[in-house]
């Protein structure tokens, strides 16, 4: 055991170290996913049994259902979350801080997974690259789960002559599909790409708070069984927005949903803190804001929106849980509660959230375009302005989801105004994309081909959003399948396909292998074709007057639903092919070189696999990003005609 005046070699200099307590890593050497599972299951069982014993046998809830299943399930969930996190070692850091046993460099290296091999993916590892890969796995699991539920939904809607599932089960699968997809889409870029790539892209060794990084991931892992288990406790039997008071009529499964959100909100909150501080304070020397890649802006913006908005959603679920367990009446109108309170709290997150999904996906694409068109990003300042505009307006539009609730008819006017206004900064991002494609010679690799799918879907989603933003038109469209088709075009058509492009792009850096682009392309385009069929037909169903969240309907809607279901199966096949491409490439793909796409961005200047400390020497940035392209051949013509007056600036000036 070394004395307090020992030093260690930290990236080249000798730095005094605190006392080393035991081996590097201390108790963390013994903690991993298995101990987490043991801790979670043990505490869940104990909590469940104790609660069962303590609950009086005749106890009933406010809605006259037996209370014991509620209390026991809640206790099990709480026990699971706390026990799992304890077993993973999440509390070790705070306790060591409390006791004044600060970690040494050797501890930090152990925590970062140095020399641990594959085991580091199963531990509370702080290395942002490990966390990025862990997020990628979680994303595939969660989106896969949501996708499976989608197939069940479309099967029910396609079988128009019978009920495949009972109405209550159907109501559960639509709600669970919705929330699983929302969670998956929030993290699909912010998880793998923001964690793995962004620190390297800005020339840092890790994130600002590495242990918070591991915490955010493992909180997500803890939350996932809460959601899946809800299906086995009667399901949520409500839409993903779990409006009150319908939610309070639901079986105990609703508690699973609430716990999922409460835990997930901590996960994203902590991740937001980490991302924002990292991008604000850890950019490389010389990386001024005008030299910062656009992906960093996009990720920062999403983190900021998530930071201020997610607590509203979290509290809406805490209040709902309180209504259920303690018989408070936040949302029970009989006793002074208001359904509009729930809706406002929910949509205060619900709207910024869609930008949390879309902005990172758009930012990844703006990162990809210059590499494959070998052209600078068009009007970087405009891209930043678009992102800033969206963030600024994102908190001012939420009540366009509530036009038809009657809560405050007079405010429909200002919300219509702000909602129409937000189309302008979003349009800036489209301009930047097509401006980058303009006159560009495209290298037709999979990551960039996704842009065509994304922009196509984004235009359709955007225009249909304009209809919905108009209050009178919303009087027809709200609550119909038109809305469902619109948001699938935005979140899935633009968001998911963009994320797929991003994953395809960064795959080689993250996994060390090349993605099989042929299989990936077949998967992506199959899914794209299926997507148009499914949701194009769904627009028709909505226009015809089909409400949403119904499992049986007028025969007028039969044809549109049959077509949508066929399209959905095609999407399923396409997505499975894409997933298969990812998995098989990950396991058997050709080993990747360090910069297969010739990118000039910092993250591609590292070797693959990226070493633990990212950079042997921290880089210094001297140039603007996206330094591609040749001088414009039309420049001579312009110069000749214009004389001294030159409004089209070319070359690498801004």
């Amino acid at each position, binding site marked *: 055991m070394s004395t307090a005046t020992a030093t260690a070699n930290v990236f080249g200099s000798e730095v005094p170290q605190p006392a080393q307590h035991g081996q590097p890593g201390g108790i963390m050497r013994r903690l991993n996913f298995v101990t987490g599972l043991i801790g979670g299951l043990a505490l869940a069982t104990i909590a469940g049994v104790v609660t069962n014993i303590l609950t009086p046998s005749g106890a009933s809830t406010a809605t006259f259902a037996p209370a014991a299943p509620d209390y026991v399930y809640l206790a099990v969930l709480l026990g699971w979350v706390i026990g799992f996190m304890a077993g993973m070692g999440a509390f070790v850091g705070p306790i060591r801080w409390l006791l004044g046993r600060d970690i040494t460099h050797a501890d930090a290296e152990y925590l970062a997974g140095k020399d641990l091999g594959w085991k580091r993916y199963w531990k509370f590892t702080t290395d942002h690259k490990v966390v990025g890969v862990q997020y990628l796995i979680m994303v595939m699991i969660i989106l896969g789960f949501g996708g499976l539920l989608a197939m069940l939904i479309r099967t029910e809607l396609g079988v128009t002559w019978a009920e495949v599932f009972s*109405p209550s089960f159907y*109501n559960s699968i639509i709600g669970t599909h919705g929330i699983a997809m929302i969670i998956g889409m929030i993290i699909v870029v912010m998880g793998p790409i923001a964690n793995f790539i962004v620190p390297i892209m800005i020339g840092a060794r890790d994130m600002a708070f590495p242990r918070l990084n591991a915490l955010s991931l493992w909180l997500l892992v803890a939350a996932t069984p809460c959601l899946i288990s809800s299906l086995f406790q009667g399901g949520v039997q409500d*839409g993903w927005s779990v*409006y009150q*008071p*319908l939610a309070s009529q639901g079986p105990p499964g609703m508690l699973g949903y609430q716990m999922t959100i409460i835990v997930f909100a901590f996960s994203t909150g902590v991740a937001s803190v980490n991302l924002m501080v990292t991008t604000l304070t850890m950019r490389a020397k010389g990386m001024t804001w005008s030299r910062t890649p656009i992906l960093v802006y996009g990720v920062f913006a999403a983190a900021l929106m998530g930071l201020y908005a997610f607590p509203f959603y979290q509290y809406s679920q805490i209040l709902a849980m309180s209504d259920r367990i303690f018989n408070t009446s936040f949302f029970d*109108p009989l006793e002074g*509660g*208001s359904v509009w309170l729930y809706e406002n709290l929910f949509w205060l997150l619900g709207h910024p959230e869609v930008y949390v999904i879309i902005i990172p996906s758009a930012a990844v694409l703006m990162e990809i375009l210059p590499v494959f068109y*070998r*052209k*600078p990003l*068009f*009007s*970087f*300042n*405009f891209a930043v302005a678009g992102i800033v505009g969206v963030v600024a307006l994102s908190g001012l539009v939420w009540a366009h989801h509530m036009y038809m609730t*009657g809560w405050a*008819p007079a405010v429909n006017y200002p919300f219509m105004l702000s909602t*129409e*206004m937000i189309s*302008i900064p979003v349009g*800036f991002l489209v301009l930047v994309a097509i*401006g980058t*494609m*303009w*006159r*560009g010679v495209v290298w*037709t690799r999979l990551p960039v081909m996704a842009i*065509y799918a994304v*922009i196509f879907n984004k235009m359709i989603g955007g*225009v249909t959003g304009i*209809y919905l*933003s*108009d209050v*009178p*038109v919303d*009087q027809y469209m*709200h*609550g119909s399948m038109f809305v469902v088709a619109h948001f699938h075009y935005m979140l899935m058509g633009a968001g998911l396909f963009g994320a797929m492009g991003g994953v395809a792009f960064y795959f080689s850096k993250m996994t060390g292998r090349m993605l099989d682009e042929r299989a990936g392309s077949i998967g992506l385009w199959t899914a794209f074709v299926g997507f148009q069929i499914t949701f194009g037909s769904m627009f*028709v169903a909505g*226009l*015809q007057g089909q*409400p949403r*969240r*119904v499992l049986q309907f007028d025969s007028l809607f039969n044809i549109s639903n049959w077509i949508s279901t066929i399209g959905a199966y095609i999407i399923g096949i396409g997505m499975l092919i894409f997933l298969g491409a990812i998995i098989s490439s990950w396991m058997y793909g050709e080993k990747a070189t360090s910069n297969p*796409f*010739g990118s000039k961005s910092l993250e591609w200047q590292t070797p693959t696999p990226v070493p633990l400390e990212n950079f042997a020497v921290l880089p210094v940035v001297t140039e603007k990003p996206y330094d591609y*392209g040749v001088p*414009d*051949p039309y420049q001579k013509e312009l*110069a*000749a*005609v*214009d*004389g001294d007056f030159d409004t089209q*600036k*070319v*070359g690498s*000036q801004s």
Partner: protein
Amino acid sequence: MTTTDIRPSGQPDEPEAPTNRPPSMHRVKMWLRRPYARGILVLTVVIGFLLLPLCWLLLAAMNQTGAPASPIMRDIEQTVFVFTLISIPITAFVFAVLVYSLLGWKHISGDEVPADQSPAIRSNTIGVVMWTAVSSLLAFFLVVWGLVELAQITANSYGTIPADEQPGDSQALIVNVTGQQWVWTFEYPQYDGITSETLYLAKDRPVYFNVTSKDVIHNFWAVELGVKIDANPGAITQTGVTPDKLGNFNVRCAELCGMHHAYMETGIQVLEKKDFNSWAREMGGGKTA
């Protein structure tokens, strides 16, 4: 930069511009001479025309069950038509760029990182300014259209119709709508409080709905009349419309309200005023208001 007075051959002599700058039309013509500029413009027009039928097709889809049956629904359809129409130019332009990017400008395939060939354009002030101007104008138009339209619809449905604009029978019909799992009940307070599970209305007579719920949130959607409002437990919301077409139409519940949400539908019967009055009398309701 030296000034070289180069004019393309064939151009007649033009008066000297006050500055050094060539006239704008000249620059536009120069730009149009580039093959891609013409190609994209042509594509924009072609795609635009291909998209044009949507304006009518969208309405056709909405009108399959007898819509429009009220001025509000006509307003909605007109808005859908106009919004589609004005969205087409920008949409067609963006699609044209996508198409031209694959068919017009060069593309390279293969595993080798290609040499840089694209012009290093970091910005284009004209393009940015035009895009901002056009999108802002469009947004402004949408906003103004929407605000005016909403004010009109509100004026005609929330109890503020000026007397001289009320058609014929000057007394509006009041219907209290109650949603509950999973049935709609309509009460006519002006007719001794008779209730019905089908919504009976009189043609050309304005009707004001007071809507509430007895349990969870439902949503009262009179589909072909273009009217929709949540039925909230603990609150009374209002909407209104003047049906102007006879026939049978649909009420659907548009907010998930539990197990049988899908079946929470009922019918609307819009009758001539005298038929409506006979119906009311048959149900036991003399007109009390």
